[in-house]
């Protein structure tokens, strides 16, 4: 797609009919969690959308976020959205290397001053800038330089959004999130370890369609995808209501698909779209596969206690807090917490022997 083309022209040149375009818009509206009635607005906006420049920077990360996006099935909708942006710098995906690559980044920033979208995955080492550098430039300095003239920043993955795994205790690199360094630009946090690929493309589609920042929640995440917690959208929720829980991964409750709360599921405190959008071409999500949610889209998820301890055991640190929870009616959670603590004590005692 040429830079001066709009998406409508590009699709027509690719032989896509108006009917095909309407299908594309229906799927895109669904992707952006817009009501189906918004399809005509999406069609009108997308037909005239210009190709935005995107500069993607990878800092302290594992490349899982890029893998999530590029290894996702290659659906027409997502690949078209990806074709519809001008990815001017991404050091994992670009062919250019060395000085040529950096020159391309600088040229794209200059050419699209004030208009480009800066995508960041990975946290930024703030303790010692030498922990992570690109072309001899520290992540910190490169972020400051690239953010200066961008339109907005999309922090992809929990590392960029909240510090993530590098930020976990004892945080040897002094890792911080994008929002801890950049204070004067709109930042959209697309958290998850990794994020759901269609959520990443959904945010790009929103830019493409409306040219604006989507509505965000209190943690700066797009409300359309992070507005509800996993628990509320979980198909196993009725078992929770009835108090039917799996106690181990191979007991009768597990085989019957009962609620995984007592096995450490963090669904009640985790906001993400896994339960509806799902993974692997919409096949499943962790809870459907029989494993509790680990809460990977939430800040500090790595330091919130064991993945297999109930929320109450891992997140309520003191006896007072436990009593507070009981007073608030979380009797079930407290019971689980005490049971988990008892299990921990027993395990510790066994270790000491």
């Amino acid at each position: 797609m040429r830079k001066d083309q709009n998406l409508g022209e590009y699709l027509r040149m690719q032989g896509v009919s108006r009917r095909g375009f309407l299908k594309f818009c229906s799927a895109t509206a669904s992707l952006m969690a817009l009501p189906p009635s918004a399809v005509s607005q999406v069609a009108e906006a997308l037909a005239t959308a210009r190709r935005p420049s995107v500069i993607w920077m990878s800092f302290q990360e594992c490349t899982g976020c890029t893998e999530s996006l590029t290894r996702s099935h290659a659906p027409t909708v997502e690949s078209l959205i990806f074709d519809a942006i001008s990815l001017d710098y991404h050091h994992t995906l670009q062919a250019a290397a060395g000085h040529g690559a950096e020159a391309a980044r600088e040229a794209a920033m200059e050419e699209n001053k004030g208009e480009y979208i800066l995508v960041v995955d990975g946290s930024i080492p703030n303790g010692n800038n030498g922990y992570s550098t690109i072309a001899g430039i520290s992540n910190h300095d490169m972020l400051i330089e690239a953010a200066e003239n961008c339109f907005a920043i999309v922090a992809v993955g929990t590392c960029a959004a909240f510090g993530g795994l590098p930020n976990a205790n004892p945080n040897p690199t002094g890792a911080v999130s994008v929002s801890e360094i950049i204070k004067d630009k709109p930042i959209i946090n697309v958290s998850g370890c990794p994020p759901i690929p269609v959520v990443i493309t959904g945010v790009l589609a929103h830019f493409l369609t409306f040219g604006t920042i989507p509505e965000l929640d209190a943690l700066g995440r797009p409300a359309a995808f992070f507005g509800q917690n996993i628990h509320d959208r979980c198909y196993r929720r009725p078992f929770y209501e009835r108090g039917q829980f799996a106690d181990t991964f191979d007991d009768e409750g597990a085989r019957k698909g009962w609620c995984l709360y007592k096995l450490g599921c963090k669904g009640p405190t985790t906001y993400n779209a896994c339960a509806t959008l799902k993974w692997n071409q919409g096949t499943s999500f962790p809870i459907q596969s029989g494993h509790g949610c680990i809460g990977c889209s939430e800040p500090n998820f790595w330091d919130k206690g064991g993945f297999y301890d109930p929320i109450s055991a891992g997140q309520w640190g003191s006896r007072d807090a436990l009593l507070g929870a009981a007073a608030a009616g979380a009797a079930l959670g407290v019971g689980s917490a005490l049971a988990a603590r008892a299990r921990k004590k027993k395990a510790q005692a066994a270790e000491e022997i």
Partner: protein
Amino acid sequence: MSSLDTIPVTTEVATGNVEPLLHEIRHALKRLAEGKEGTVIDLKRLPLAPGEEERIAATLGTGEVRADVDALGPTLIQETSYPGVWLITHKNADEVVVARFIEVTYIPELLRSQQADIDAGINRLENELKN
């Protein structure tokens, strides 16, 4: 273990969302019959347990009209056994479902020939006849 099917996990779980959805369709159909606007329901937006989407489709059944649309991958438009209720399944070129809707309408928009395509068709036909 040779197949995922042999793992003894029950998947017949009910969210309790199927029946309300069927009632929503009933209400939408009544609105349509009263001359009011149609309704589109995005099935991706609802929490549904494995097998529940199939249950909805089975309850609605299949009606007289079925159309296969080949535009940016296959789309199946199936009128259900309840006239005015259509199940629309969009797939990409790899046959992966990218969106699924229930449309309560007289005729789904996607079935209509589109003005832009008609205009392009006129040009093509005129060029064809010139040669």
